[in-house]
């Protein structure tokens, strides 16, 4: 059993290494990546988006996704924690249905609606993606804490842990896989959804995609899409992990 889990763990790290290498190569080896795009779209006359280099676009993309993810994790955790308190149970359903409703608004529409308030730039993107991420985080915090087996909670109280000790030493570690599942979803969605930021002039990998769409240039589209895909996959693999105690 141990052999099997070490092997799948090794496979995971090989995947992570490959994805990281691919992402870094596309970002930094401009000439090499151009050759690849040339091969993939031989009929085009230009292959690299001329306005900004890929390193800048990538940095913008990561900034948008990271800022929105961190904010969503912070706010979602607070919201989840409040929903778990005795006082929170009363308004839990209200918050959750409000969050559900917010998720039905299309991302692009939400960004566009924010522009009059925030102006063009990264702000509407970060705000919109944060709003989308809060609910899944909060839901997973609640689900994770509630997934702690009642006998484990009973034992923790019964041997004399105070509430905070029980939370920190037992409940949070046990809830962590579920919470991290939510974090992973939010981060991965944010990395690809941040490409929509190009619409409101926030920069990022969406810019070559938008330009390629506008100019009928497939190479530009691929230049934005491929690094975005490998980055999302990389984060997905990185955040897919089982805690040591959960492995057989």
């Amino acid at each position, binding site marked *: 059993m141990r052999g099997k889990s070490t092997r799948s763990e090794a496979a995971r790290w090989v995947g992570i290494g490959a994805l990281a290498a691919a992402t870094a190569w596309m970002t930094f080896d401009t000439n090499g990546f151009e050759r690849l795009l040339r091969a993939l779209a031989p009929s085009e006359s230009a292959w690299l988006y001329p306005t900004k280099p890929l390193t800048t676009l990538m940095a913008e993309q990561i900034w948008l996704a990271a800022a929105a993810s961190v904010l969503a994790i912070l706010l979602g955790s607070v919201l989840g924690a409040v929903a778990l308190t005795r006082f929170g149970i009363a308004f839990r359903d209200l918050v959750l249905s409000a969050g559900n409703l917010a998720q039905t608004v299309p991302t692009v529409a939400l960004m566009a609606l924010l522009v009059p308030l925030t102006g063009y730039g990264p702000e509407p993107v970060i705000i919109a993606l944060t709003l989308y991420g809060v609910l899944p985080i909060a839901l997973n915090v609640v689900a994770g804490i509630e997934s702690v087996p009642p006998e*484990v909670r009973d034992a923790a109280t019964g041997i*004399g842990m105070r509430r905070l000790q029980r939370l920190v*030493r037992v409940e949070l570690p046990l809830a962590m896989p579920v919470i991290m599942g939510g974090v992973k979803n939010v981060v991965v969605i944010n990395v690809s959804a941040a490409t929509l930021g190009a619409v409101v002039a926030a920069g990022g990998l969406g810019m070559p995609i938008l330009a390629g769409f506008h100019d009928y240039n497939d190479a530009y589209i691929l230049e934005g899409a491929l690094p975005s895909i490998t980055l999302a996959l990389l984060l997905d693999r990185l955040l897919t992990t089982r805690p040591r*105690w959960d492995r057989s």
Partner: protein
Amino acid sequence: MIEIVGLTKSYGEHRAVDGLDLRIETGELTVLLGPSGAGKTTVLRCINRLIEPTSGRILVDGVDASTLDPVELRRSMGYVIQNVGLFPNMTIRENVAAVPRLLGWDKKRTAERVEEMLDAVGLDPARYGPKYPRQLSGGEAQRVGVARALAADPPVLLMDEPFGAVDPLTRERLQKLMRDLQRRLKKTVVFVTHDIDEAVLLADRIALMRDGRLEQHDTPEAMWRRPANEFVSRFFGENLGLRVIIRHCLADVRLKPLPDGAPDLPRIDAGVSLKEALAELVGRRARALVVVRDGSPVGLFDFDVLVESLAEESACDAR
């Protein structure tokens, strides 16, 4: 000593515990026995204040438990439950160290104590210490549960059907482990079960409950000889006597003298219980057994010896 005075716990109209009075002596193992819904677990959980009573008092060594900090109170009482409740995110070592850590013991003392406790429950510390609960069998996990409860050497041990969820063979082993540990450690133990054999094997005294009330509180022998009422005798059934003899050691009964010459009879060690001796008698279809102590025969055991030993209340019931 734990003194329960007029304990009542109501849930709406229903009284889970109904005016219970019970004295649990220091150093004794008291079994709370009774059918499901008798209120046994409720009583246990009132003792460490996981449940607050509706009325009545619980005195621990003369101090009203409701005046103590519940967390401090719980740390002075080992707690073992049916589903073990080991912390899956901690190693076995960390699980056993949980209460010493809460009490702020230093690392060295905790580590030594953890080794000692794992040894005491029959688990090799080097092999089991670094494992996680998920990697243990039910019986092993329950041993760890007992080790964790005993780790800080609490004077009181509360056990709620601790061996209820394991297979019969493992359960028997755990019961014997518990009996041997208790003979050595002399804790004040409150042990909830609905298993009559388990109660008879482990109890110094049994508190038999029904519908939140105490029906009888006495040694198993006394309950067998003098059941307080119809419910008590019906609950234990016809063969309580057969169960009770597991408590008595062959070494303690007056044997018949050995006949001259070497009788051609099966031999049995003096260390076994009367129940095992009787089983041997029946199993071997023998008229009598030669009782052996340290390799040399000391007397003869037969059915007459058994019956006579049971007639003598005082000799037999002392434990």
